[in-house]
């Protein structure tokens, strides 16, 4: 079939209207010409698993990138389930890109990757127009690397250190920012632990007229806030440092006045070590707030209530369980625009409840907040009835993560498994994309998930299920599944081997403390050459394991890069050529 192809220039122009990666990927599949045109004009690439592809493959396909987003370690690394040294090194990427993209690359966004000072220095000197550096949950670098970024990236707009682990070698890295105006729009240093040089910080803020987001570290005391806020009244997002001080009326009135001056403020965070008497200082901005992160603030009701009930436009609230059921009821009454709620445990390891936060609080919010679609809730008790009510109230739920602190907890009233409750969630919430399960659950919940959760993309599962049937239901039924992470469940070889092909349609599968045998891993790797099957075992060299031995941790991901070679001794990638 002969097709009149549009001239390349026209195609390029048309493609420039396509911003989503999905659309651009579709366009690349139409024909060779479109593939070629598209790849040369693609500017932004997202790589959800840094080991799915190599820097060279990326550079060969996309010769001119402006922005790269890379994700490294699996999500369970956040909870110390991935041993140190596993991998996710960004250095090879930076090295390759510094050769190929020196004039075009402007933005690097990393999550759960290991970053070195050498890489940061290389970034700062290689990319002439570097603008955005976002390091979320990264590690491996020090303030020396940050000093290089500050000194050399003359057009830096965003520097966000997220929740990274940064070694604080010196407090003066801020002084490396150039004199004169900077183009900073966003600065997040909340993860830094050590002292800050205040005059450097003051100077930087004064010289950054475009600054919209500023998140300070705990080291910045409350007394400094009025001065800093007065230098940046245009802020849209602000994170305080330690919010504590001896109560003095002049400090209070200065702070209140400073907050009043921030007419554009929409988001607040920080609030470590709160002195409750200073909370009213933020009252002037409450009515404008759409985002409030109090998840470090050990404040209780009524102080907490008084604050939150003033935030009528709140869309996102992160808070500790000190809010209790009563506070959540008040939240439900005051904040009708609430979309996202995260309630963190104040005492996760205590055997007894230290606060009165139960399933009732979540039910109240689900009832009172019609736009609620994202939930992360830590609690100690749950019932099927509550979950059914929540599902009925909020069929628009997109992300539902419930963590009942004690594993395998049943419905505390009926002592039954929570299958019916979670089942209602997946049945009613047809747009559900992310789900985390906890409590006592049998294979039945997985039957419901496989049958109903057709849009589910990420599922996290811990201490649940009865048998391989559970895993089989999920792998065979969840059409949109991209990420599956499992720990301490009785899932073994059968379901995995029966659904081997499914694994190539997903980004990754994590299974730890399950019953998958070493032999099954070998078999799987022979069957599926485009999967990397990583067996992680800190107990001993994997070579000494017999075929039937269950592996400690298993990480399976699709890749076009083949096996990697940067792994530590306790990681083995099953080789499809292994004769047996």
């Amino acid at each position, binding site marked *: 079939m002969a097709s009149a192809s549009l001239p390349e220039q026209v195609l390029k122009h048309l493609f420039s209207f396509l911003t989503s990666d999905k659309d651009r990927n579709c366009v690349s599949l139409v024909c060779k010409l479109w593939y070629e045109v598209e790849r040369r004009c693609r500017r932004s690439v997202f790589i959800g698993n840094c080991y799915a592809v190599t820097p060279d493959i990326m550079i060969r396909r996309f010769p001119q990138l402006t922005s790269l987003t890379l994700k490294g370690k699996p999500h369970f690394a956040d*909870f110390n389930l991935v041993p140190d040294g596993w991998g996710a090194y960004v250095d090879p990427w930076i090295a390759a890109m510094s050769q190929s993209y020196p004039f075009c690359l402007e933005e690097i966004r990393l999550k759960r990757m290991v970053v070195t000072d050498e890489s940061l220095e290389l970034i700062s000197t290689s990319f002439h127009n570097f603008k955005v550096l976002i390091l979320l949950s990264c590690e491996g670098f020090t303030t020396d690397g940050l000093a290089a970024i500050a000194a050399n990236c003359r057009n830096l707009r965003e520097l966000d250190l997220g*929740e990274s682990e940064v070694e604080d070698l010196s407090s003066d890295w801020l002084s490396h920012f150039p004199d004169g105006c900077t183009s900073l729009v966003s600065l997040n240093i909340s993860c830094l632990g050590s002292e800050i040089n205040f005059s450097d910080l003051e100077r930087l803020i004064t010289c950054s007229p475009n600054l919209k987001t500023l998140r300070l570290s705990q080291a910045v005391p409350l007394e400094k806030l009025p001065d800093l806020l007065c230098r940046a009244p245009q802020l849209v997002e602000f994170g305080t440092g330690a919010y504590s001080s001896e109560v003095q009326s002049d400090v209070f009135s200065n702070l209140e006045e400073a907050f009043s001056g921030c007419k554009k403020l929409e988001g607040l965070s920080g609030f470590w070590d709160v002195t409750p008497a200073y909370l009213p200082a933020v009252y002037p901005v409450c009515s404008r707030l759409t985002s409030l992160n109090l998840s470090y603030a050990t404040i209780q009701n009524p102080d907490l209530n008084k604050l939150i009930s003033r935030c009528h436009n709140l869309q996102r609230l992160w808070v500790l369980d000190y809010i209790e059921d009563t506070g959540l009821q008040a939240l439900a009454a005051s904040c009708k625009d609430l979309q996202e709620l995260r309630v963190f445990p104040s005492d996760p390891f205590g*055997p007894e409840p230290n606060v009165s936060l139960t399933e009732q609080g979540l039910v109240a919010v689900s009832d009172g907040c019609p736009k609620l679609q994202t939930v992360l809730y830590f609690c100690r008790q749950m019932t099927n009835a509550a979950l059914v009510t929540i599902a009925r109230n909020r069929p628009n739920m997109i992300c539902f993560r419930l963590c009942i602190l004690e594993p395998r907890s049943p419905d505390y009233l009926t002592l039954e498994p929570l299958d019916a409750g979670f089942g209602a969630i997946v049945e009613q919430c047809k747009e559900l994309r992310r789900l985390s399960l906890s409590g006592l659950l049998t294979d039945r919940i997985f039957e419901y998930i496989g049958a109903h959760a057709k849009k589910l993309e990420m599922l996290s599962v811990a201490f649940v299920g009865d048998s391989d049937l559970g895993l089989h239901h999920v792998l065979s039924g969840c059409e949109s599944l991209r990420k599956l992470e499992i*720990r301490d469940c009785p899932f073994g070889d059968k379901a995995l*081997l029966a659904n081997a092909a499914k694994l190539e349609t997903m980004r990754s599968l994590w299974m730890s403390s399950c019953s998958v*045998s070493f032999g099954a891993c070998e078999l799987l790797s022979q069957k599926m050459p485009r999967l990397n099957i990583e067996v992680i075992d800190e107990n001993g060299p994997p070579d000494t394991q017999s075929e039937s031995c269950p592996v400690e941790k298993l990480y399976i991901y699709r890749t076009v890069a083949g096996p990697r070679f940067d792994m530590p001794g306790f990681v083995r990638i099953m080789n499809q050529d292994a004769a047996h």
Partner: protein
Amino acid sequence: MTTIYENNDLATELRLGLPGTTDESKTELSNNKRSSSDLNHHDQQDSSSTSKVQIVGWPPVRSYRKNIVIQTKNSNCDISQGMYVKVSMDGAPYLRKIDLRFYKSYQELLKALENMFKHPIGIYLEKEGNTTCGSNYVLTYEDKDGDWMLVGDVPLDMFINSCKRLRIMKGCEAKGLGCI
């Protein structure tokens, strides 16, 4: 334990073992090697004590969130009200108040008080063996039993929990407390 697979895909499944064998091999597999978290759970069920065996990575809370919680657990006070105690200084007309929770060491506390009253204060520190400076004033406190004690003898946590008020005492009056 037999399981029935309705889905036809499993009819052509790959499995270990000879055709016709059932799932018994699976229970053998799980007995060969127990994961540490399995062991933890079984310990929990067997023991009658209420102490929990902590499971690695559970609950799924990031480590920097756990650390914050632990810090606040140590303070026995009512969290929302702080631990304000009155501070008097001999010869000064007005009393002040400070929140004891926010000082990580005696040095920090002393510095704060010196700032507040604009006067150097001596403190007895076991390591030094005497007051820190040639000041006439010494820091003392009234404890739960109503006794006046010299600040610095006991660990800070213990001091914070038993201190009801502070008094910056003139050196000559402090002699009765010994040590100088």
